[in-house]
């Protein structure tokens, strides 16, 4: 089981997609159940992995290596550590919940669910790959289903959104491909092995256009990952794609895909090129703070609830970057504790934000399914002139107590209320950031206020005030909807009260990475 479990996790959904080919047309019910079944079993396996994961080891676990393309030294090489473990679990959980959230899909269900399963496989593959070539392949595999899921099942501007998402991401992928090839050809012996490259990459001593090759590689990787995070100013594909995508796809986009950017930085850029990482850390912090403030400021101005949630992701991912920048804490006059808080906080924030933002998008979907719109305030160019500038809802808390309760809880999680999971990871990132880059972090803390502004304004406008007659007939959440949100809410509360179980998984790996980055650096004497 140990050696094959990751293969199972990755290829189980592919099997499901293949199974769908044998189901005759018209059996819509069956497609859903197949998808739910395969992702459900995948989730069970992921739970088992989480249970069996050795928290006392910083080594890669459940490792599997097999030659794949021996002539190029490409291996089928998988394994997980404390960085990938939370992401693997997150992917499995959100994939399953997304399938449940897609229960009402009627347009071409076979294609939808099959693509969704392929997407799931691609994401899982990214998080378990230890061979850059394999990693890159999964990274690209993921794009295709995503393109179609947005382009076919999305909102009114779906094709524009899909092509934009695709091209934007592909642009990043190209740079990543170049970086990967450079790493391969300049390492001796040529290898894609991400573990071997840790000891090889920093030995690269080549110049190109008068610049050291390592800097170019770092920069190319950075752009590739930055687009995914997304880091300002590469973030504008995100609101569009999130808004146009169907609910479940938004959940995956915000919940899992964004994390690949920061995951890539931590998995590849940090250990392979520590010198560059150390120099760029301050840039990461600056960009993180810009993300925090810029994302939140944009969210405040949004009138479309889904767009607001999308921009809130930009802000919250900025906090991850700030935490990651704390890796250089000791070098900047801080402490090892600061570095550990920042780095562990960053990974925890990746997980927590995945859960919270997934819940947010699911809740947006709940109201959209009922009202077929999601305007907090109707925009000034709305087609019905009488409604322009009017509140989209109002007083929903009267008629929909369960829904408004869920929204309140998740909104408060989003604005970082203590005892809910977002708080502790955000606080860790800020503490780490503060011990490293004091002034920047102080600016960043204003995000705490800005996040509260848009969540509370939206809540007031939609749920408080006198009930809007137009929406008096809406029904409260169904058992299926409660069921898909309940696990997320339970995790939000559990990790908010008791973050230790998650941190125990993460900490050894991250502390190791901090050591690695700081020790391997030839800048040590600087």
């Amino acid at each position, binding site marked *: 089981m140990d050696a094959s479990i990751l293969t199972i996790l990755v290829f189980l959904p592919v099997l499901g997609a293949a199974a769908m080919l044998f189901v005759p047309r018209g059996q819509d019910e069956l497609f859903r159940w197949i998808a739910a079944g395969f992702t459900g079993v995948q989730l069970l396996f992921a739970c088992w992995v989480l249970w069996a994961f050795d928290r006392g080891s910083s080594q890669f676990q459940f490792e599997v290596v097999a030659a794949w393309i021996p002539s190029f030294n490409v291996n089928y090489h998988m394994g997980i550590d404390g960085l990938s473990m939370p992401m693997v679990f997150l992917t499995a959980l959100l994939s399953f919940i997304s399938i449940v959230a897609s229960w009402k899909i009627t347009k071409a269900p076979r294609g939808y669910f099959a693509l969704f399963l392929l997407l799931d496989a691609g994401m899982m593959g990214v998080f378990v790959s230890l061979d850059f070539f394999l990693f890159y392949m999964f990274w690209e595999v993921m794009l295709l289903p995503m393109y179609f899921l947005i382009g076919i099942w999305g909102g009114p501007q779906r094709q524009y959104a899909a092509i934009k998402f695709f091209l934007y991401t592909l642009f990043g992928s190209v740079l990543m491909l170049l970086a990967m090839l450079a790493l391969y050809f300049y390492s001796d012996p040529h290898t894609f092995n991400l573990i071997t490259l840790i000891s090889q990459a920093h030995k690269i001593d080549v110049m190109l256009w008068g610049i050291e090759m390592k800097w170019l590689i770092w920069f190319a990787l950075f752009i590739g990952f930055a687009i995914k995070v997304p880091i300002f100013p590469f973030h504008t594909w995100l609101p569009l794609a999130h808004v146009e995508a169907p609910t479940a796809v938004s959940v995956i986009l915000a919940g899992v895909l964004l994390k690949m950017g920061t995951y890539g930085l931590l998995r590849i850029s940090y250990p392979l090129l520590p010198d560059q990482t150390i120099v760029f850390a301050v840039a990461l912090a600056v960009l993180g703070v810009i993300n925090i403030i810029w994302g939140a400021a944009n969210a405040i*101005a949004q009138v479309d609830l889904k767009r607001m949630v999308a921009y809130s992701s930009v802000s919250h991912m900025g906090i991850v970057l700030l935490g990651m920048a704390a890796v250089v804490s000791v070098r900047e006059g801080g402490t090892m504790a600061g570095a550990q808080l920042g780095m562990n906080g960053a990974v925890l924030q990746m997980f927590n934000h995945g859960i919270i933002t997934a819940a947010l998008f699911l809740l947006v979907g709940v109201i959209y399914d009922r009202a077929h719109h999601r305007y907090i305030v109707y925009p000034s160019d709305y087609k019905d002139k009488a409604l322009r500038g009017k509140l989209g809802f109002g007083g929903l808390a009267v008629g929909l107590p369960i829904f408004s309760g869920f929204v309140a809880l998740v909104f408060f999680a989003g604005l970082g209320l203590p005892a809910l999971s977002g708080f502790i990871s955000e606080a860790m990132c800020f503490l780490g950031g503060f011990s490293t880059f004091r002034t920047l972090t102080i600016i960043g803390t204003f995000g705490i206020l800005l996040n509260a502004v848009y969540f*509370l304004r939206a809540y007031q406008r939609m749920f408080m005030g006198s009930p809007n007659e137009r929406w008096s007939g809406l029904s409260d959440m169904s058992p299926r909807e409660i069921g898909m949100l309940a696990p997320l809410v339970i995790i939000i509360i559990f990790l908010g009260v008791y973050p230790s179980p998650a941190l125990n998984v993460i900490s050894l790996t991250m502390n190791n990475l901090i050591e690695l980055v700081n020790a391997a650096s030839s800048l040590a004497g600087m």
Partner: protein
Amino acid sequence: MHTLTLYALIILFLPLASFVLQIFFGRLIGPRGVWLSVGAVAITLVLALTMLFSVVLGSPMEHYPELVWFSLGDFSLTLGFQLDNIAVVMLVIVALISGLVHLYSVEYMRGDVRYTRFFGYLGIFTFAMNGIVLAHSLLMMYVFWELVGLSSYLLIGHWFEKDSAADASKKAFLANRVGDIGMFIGIMLLWSVTGSFTFQGLYELVDVEGGNMFAGQMGLLSVAGVLVFMGAVGKSAQFPLHVWLPDAMEGPTPVSALIHAATMVAAGVYLTVRLFPILTPDALLFVASVGALTAVLGALIAISQTDIKRVLAYSTISQLGYMIMAVGMGAQQAAFFHLGTHAMFKGLLFLCSGSVIHALHHALEHTGDHETDPQDMRNMGGLRKRMPITYATMLIGALAISGVPLFSGFLSKDAILAGTLAFAQHHHQWWAILFPVAGFGAAAITAFYMFRLIFMTFHGKPAKAQVNRQVHEPSLVMTAPLMTLAALSFALFFTLPGINPLHAEGWFTKIIPQAENLTGYPELGVEHLEHGFHQAHSQAVRLSVGVAGSGILLAIAFYLLGWLDPKAWTQKLQRIGLYQLSRSKFYFDEIYDALLYRPFLWLTAKIAWLDWDLWDQRFIDGLGRGTVKVSDVSGWLDYHLLDQYVVDGLGRVVSWMGAVGRKVQTGRVQNYVLWALVGGILIVIVAANF
């Protein structure tokens, strides 16, 4: 587990259980289930009192249990209790007021659409408040600090269908968050220097005698202290963040009594009291200035308000200013003393106002009047005979807050005023005199507006005789808390076993001694401070009785006997614009709205335009369109130039050559032989020459 730890855990979590019960099963159990919540808080009161008695009769409480919350290699974070005398007293105050408010609400909120949910919210508030009290570290306090903010948000917005309530709840949360940012930065700053979050740890690491970690950068410690104090500015509604508290009166009146008068708003004072040992003189001066300004500001606004709850709200702001000022003066003991006495009489005053509003509301409904505002004092008058218990208890509250001897407020206010006098005597700069002036001035105004409230509400002729006839005293469930709190507003309860109504010495001062400041400045030494307070005491007594008396007399002259006409005086003051300034609360809301909130929203709209319309739609998509243009051009070049000209041109050249070459194929053998001969000769020539 230690018994005390167990007690603290029960006190902390029982109200949380009440919250869970009411939120998830409230509707199922029905309205009678709220008695379970009352019972839960009653148990916490019993436990807290047990601890208090053991402290009063026995030894001081010093119990600091903790456990590791999480750890990451070099860093670990603990949760724990700081169970000392101050915490025990505070627990009793919270449990007592919370218990009485629970009881009172059983009647007051009867028939409310979200009756059980209301009790759930009271439960989570009590939980969070107890958390603040028990927290052993700044970070843990911050956690509960925000949770208290949440419960305040929920309770202010209890009647969220009203836009004003919805606005007020949001405003309260956001104003508090502004302060909380400062507090969070302050916490980070203290931690980054000392590596500690806990009070005990900070006391040790900042202590000058124990190797101050801030040695050489005391300025930074001042900054950190002021920043953490920002949290108190928000929570305790100090200038300039006081604007949320009056609006918070949109919540049900029991909430105003519990949260926005007696306990939550006092949390800021509690924090400052806890922080006192590590506050430098500079930070303390800042604290004192904020407090003094707030004390005067709140009192000045309270004079002209006509909404009974708003008068009390501004009064609360003013009294909290007193407490904050006291800590800043070094009179940390007096500040906490005033916190305790204020909790009783201000809780009482609010519950009395609730009783009046409740009675008036029902009377108005009875007479079919839905227009008249039951909170406006101009619609009251003459209620004395209709509601004797409410009248008597509210009068006691007014006497207490005005600082009349025999009542608790006299003692605590006097202690603070003695502190300001001592401060002024010690600091020889001209501005030091401003603190006693602010203290005594605000005291005089307080007495005036409180008796204005009493007279407008209970005396004189009823504004609406028909309504007045329908008004009657509420049931015992509501009056019992009034009588309890009225009893606790007498000085005696705070001075036992002492019975001298002019001297504060008693169990309270015994268990809450003046704390030691650890930053090493001689003027903050305990003995030095106490000596100063002691010397200023008798002077303060005379002065404070004088100012309270003159304030009350002035109110009698205006509102009871009618010797002076309020309207005429209002106009006189209005001539220099003073009345309107007070009436409209110094225009804080308008100024914030025009200078901060609106420009801020405008800015976010511009940012959104920059982000989307300019950057994405113009630039990024422009890149896309540019790429399409370039590929159009390259497509044109590809087809028209490369394909049509070059490639096809080559073809045409070939076909032309073919056409030319075809002519060679004549079909005559003679021609072929001739050409073969020429070729052969050429080969021979070439071969011979090379």
